[in-house]
């Protein structure tokens, strides 16, 4: 039985009684019915452009939804609505049967959900919005991507009829002619490839055939904070662990959990939070870490109007990954490492000699001193003590004892 797309997964509008809130729209598409299944080597129809179903993007979107619901009080304004559209693949449904309880990410459902999402966003400029798409995508320019919805590849009408484009969504969420002022804090996440399939000829003529999510009425000044975080740079691919989760979402959730944490003033009070700028910086580091761990080569790019605003708050100081080595390596067995607070008290006990090496750990963000004592003394090396600032996501350090 089809689930009513007009009913958000989460709806606190009645309780908020018109107060500003966060309005979320999430879409995850994996089980494109007109594309060959993962592992199916048949070429597929010409309308498929050589693409196949995905195995993790719907699960990813679901995990993003779950995270937002679990942290509904961590945003600058309370979570007001959360709309989720999911088209799972067979494997994802088997892993998480509840995915079938969501409206599917069809074109009509997306248009309805986007319309309702926008309507909610336009109730106050103090609202906030969050958009997350996970699925197939096609490049057009730095600031744009074509997002493929469930029916893509059905061979009816224009090749991109069952797609929406990011720039239309982005410009459609600006203040509109004759409309009320819309949420001035917006954040977009596009977790999709941005390459151009070789099978797409004369792409520009095709691109005019995407289905507009919004009828854009150009009006007024655009002063939104509206960053777009693209999982893949134009011309590159976004990667995923099959059947599990996308690389971008893993990095994003690590960042939102604290790896992008900064301690700065928000409305007159110093608070640990994740901001547009801190997320921009930390995402690059985390994705590179995952590239190295998984053997991938993914490059994320930020775009949109990047005015620095808080995205979410942290309950406590986050931890930062520390990585340190002794230079030269020959001194490793002699260098006893201590981590001290500013009063000289031991903060953390470190194995001697360092093990594992390079030594990795997660410590609470803050300032400390790190001391290397050569034991027994050796004329080739010297004791050193350095101040160290630990802040997320990662702080490597090489202690030179010569």
């Amino acid at each position, binding site marked *: 039985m089809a689930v009513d797309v007009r009913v958000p997964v989460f709806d606190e509008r009645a309780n908020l009684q018109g107060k500003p809130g966060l309005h979320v729209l999430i879409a995850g598409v994996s089980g494109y019915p007109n594309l060959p299944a993962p592992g199916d080597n048949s070429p597929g129809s010409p309308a498929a452009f050589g693409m196949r179903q995905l195995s993790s993007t719907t699960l990813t979107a679901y995990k993003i939804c779950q995270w937002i619901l679990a942290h509904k009080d961590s945003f600058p304004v309370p979570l007001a609505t959360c709309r989720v559209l999911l088209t799972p693949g067979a494997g994802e449904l088997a892993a998480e049967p509840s995915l079938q309880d969501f409206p599917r990410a069809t074109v009509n459902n997306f248009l309805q959900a986007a319309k309702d999402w926008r309507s909610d966003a336009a109730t106050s400029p103090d609202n906030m919005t969050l958009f997350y798409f996970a699925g197939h995508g096609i490049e057009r320019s730095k600031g744009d991507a074509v997002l493929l919805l469930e029916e893509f590849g059905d061979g009816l009408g224009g090749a991109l009829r069952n797609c929406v484009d990011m*720039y239309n969504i982005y410009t459609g969420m600006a203040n509109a002619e004759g409309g009320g002022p819309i949420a001035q804090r917006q954040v977009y996440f596009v977790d999709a490839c941005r390459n151009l399939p070789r099978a797409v000829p004369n792409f520009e003529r095709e691109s005019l055939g995407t289905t507009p999510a919004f009828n854009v009425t*150009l009006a007024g000044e655009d002063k939104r904070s509206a960053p777009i975080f693209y999982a893949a740079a134009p011309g590159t691919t976004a990667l995923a662990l099959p059947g599990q989760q996308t690389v971008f979402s893993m990095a994003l959730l690590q960042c939102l959990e604290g790896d992008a944490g900064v301690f700065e003033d928000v409305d007159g009070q110093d608070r640990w939070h994740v901001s547009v700028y801190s997320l921009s910086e930390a995402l690059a580091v985390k994705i590179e870490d995952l590239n190295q761990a998984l053997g991938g080569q993914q490059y994320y790019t930020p775009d949109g109007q990047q005015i620095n605003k808080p995205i979410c708050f942290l309950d406590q100081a986050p931890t930062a990954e520390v990585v340190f080595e002794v230079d030269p390596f020959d001194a490793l067995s002699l260098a006893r490492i201590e981590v001290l607070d500013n009063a000289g008290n031991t903060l953390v006990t470190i194995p001697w000699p360092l093990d594992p090496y390079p030594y990795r750990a997660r410590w609470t963000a803050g300032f400390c001193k790190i001391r290397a004592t050569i034991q027994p003394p050796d004329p080739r090396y010297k004791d050193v003590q350095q101040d160290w600032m630990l802040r997320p996501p990662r702080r490597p350090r090489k202690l030179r004892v010569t």
Partner: protein
Amino acid sequence: MSQLSFRTEFHSSELQQLELPVEVRKPNMALVTRTLSTETVDVPPGTYHIVATLPAGVELYERAEVVADKATVVVLRPDPADVSPSESLEVQRYFVGTPVASTLPMAAALGLESLGPSEDTATLRILAGNPLAGDRLVGQLTMGDPGTLLAPQPPPERGIARFVCWSGTGRFVQLLQRGQPPLNLALPISPDVGCTLDIVRQLTGPLAPELHLPNVGADSTLRYYERGLLDQVRTAIGAISFERLLQQKMADPIAAAVGAYMLLRLGELDRLHDWTRNLANMFPWLPDGLALWGEHQARLGRHAEALTSFLQLPDRGLPIFSDGLSYTVDRLRLYSRFPIAGQPPESAGRAPDLLARLQQFADSVDFRKPILTFTGLDPSRPDDELLDPSAPASSELDGLDVLQHMG
């Protein structure tokens, strides 16, 4: 209150000129202020932690004890493990961050001769012409040529070939390497100001071109932007230096364009004043002036003016910076689809045509690079075809031998 100021101890002129974005924090990590290394801040006595990030991501950190009524100078130095091995490598280590392979490929190092076409060849060409006007770009070359000058310089270090590019009619520099797609980079030069091009032998992969602007502030801002270090970008352009650049637009409109792009990206529309219009009007050779003015007007809701500006782009050519192309393409697509109040009727049909032409370039652009970079042996018809490693040498591919000038 007491004064806190900063000093760096770099050796290269580029790093010495750099106004470094600095953060001042309290012991509980709360931010006190962001400023530039050339500025002095007033703070109450106490302990402060000073952090500065170099464009390549290297952090400088010092702790400072500020006492009452006494000025404190904090010397910001790299960690001993991050110190550049030589002055000549400071720019590569602290600006660019790409590790340089300072040793030759094994075969060449052993003095061995290749028995077939050598894959380790690289050629540079300067290309002139306006691809948007339908020109087929033609090559111009080196010293003595009346066109754009590409002059080899002494290599700063092994594994790097350096060239200085002086203005003429040249629009692109093309790097040809067998087995790689020909790489075209827009030249960030003006009639009065050139640029530096380094060709770097990386640890793995093909040779990498790195363009450097002579204005160190603009160059570093592009590097911060490329790395997603937006706090540093904002601090750098928050300085008077960038505003002075825009005021001194006759001196360096390329650096001014960088500042304008960054202000647009960070949504600081109020600080743009009339600079984008001046860039568009006072430099009729600068495509980016039109892209900047167009996007600025669009952000202000003046879409008819924006479209008029974008539609003039074919007269000037492709923007030098990739953001300029992206802004233009995105706005033209929007205006092709949705009517603008006050839109001149004659422009209705021109937007889709220009969009189609620009999209051909956008498909081959590496938008990770701030300076317009795209592939194709014929830059007026970009593609991603590789340069055939087995093809015989052709005069069409003649140019400046890069490896001959590499350290």
